[in-house]
């Protein structure tokens, strides 16, 4: 079965420091991977995706993610964290065995807290 794991419930980082939010996945074929961010009382906002090609993907708000096939990981990174980055982050993979194959499977989410 397809699955996504976010091993950390919370990540704490000081403003200006680099941040990493971890994600590992399990799929049978080639994964389509996504990162979304959720601010309180707001919907999920798309950050970036990996479909094919370059393993380093750049997205919105200075975020990037690195696809590592051998480690089945897709960690989200940012070189310098901002307090405004504090939010709930979700990793998701496209469900290849879903009837129509386009629904997303989400991880449980990681709360990022950036302190000033």
């Amino acid at each position, binding site marked *: 079965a397809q699955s*996504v794991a976010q091993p950390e419930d919370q990540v704490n980082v000081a403003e200006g420091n680099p941040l990493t939010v971890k994600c590992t996945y399990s799929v049978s074929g080639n994964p*389509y991977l*996504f990162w*979304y961010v959720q601010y309180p*009382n*707001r*919907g*999920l*906002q*798309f950050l970036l*995706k990996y*479909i094919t090609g370059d393993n380093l993907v750049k997205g919105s708000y200075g975020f990037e993610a690195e696809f590592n096939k051998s480690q089945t990981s897709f960690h989200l990174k940012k070189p310098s964290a901002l307090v405004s980055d504090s939010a709930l982050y*979700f990793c*998701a993979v*496209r*469900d290849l065995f*879903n*009837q*129509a*194959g*386009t*629904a*997303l*499977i*989400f*991880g*449980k*989410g990681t709360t990022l807290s950036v302190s000033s």
Partner: protein
Amino acid sequence: GAGVSQTPSNKVTEKGKYVELRCDPISGHTALYWYRQSLGQGPEFLIYFQGTGAADDSGLPNDRFFAVRPEGSVSTLKIQRTERGDSAVYLCASSPSGASGRGEQFFGPGTRLTVL
């Protein structure tokens, strides 16, 4: 432009009642998804529409849940005989075309359903 909108933003109902949740996707998006997000969890897939038809309803938990999209735009999620376990945030997402699965999904702010 206008994003995905959902109404109502909050719905409180009593156990056993019937509820309808509405989703207005981004204009021109042919793919529409419903997800359910329980507290502390990532969104879980419920149903996917391509145009007017439900291409995949494998995520609906039981026959109390039903969704329609009669004209290929607005969708309504219907829950009969609500139970306390149905309490969650119901998210709607749309995408220009769901067929390839490569595109990101654009999420609405959600409807928070509370069943007393």
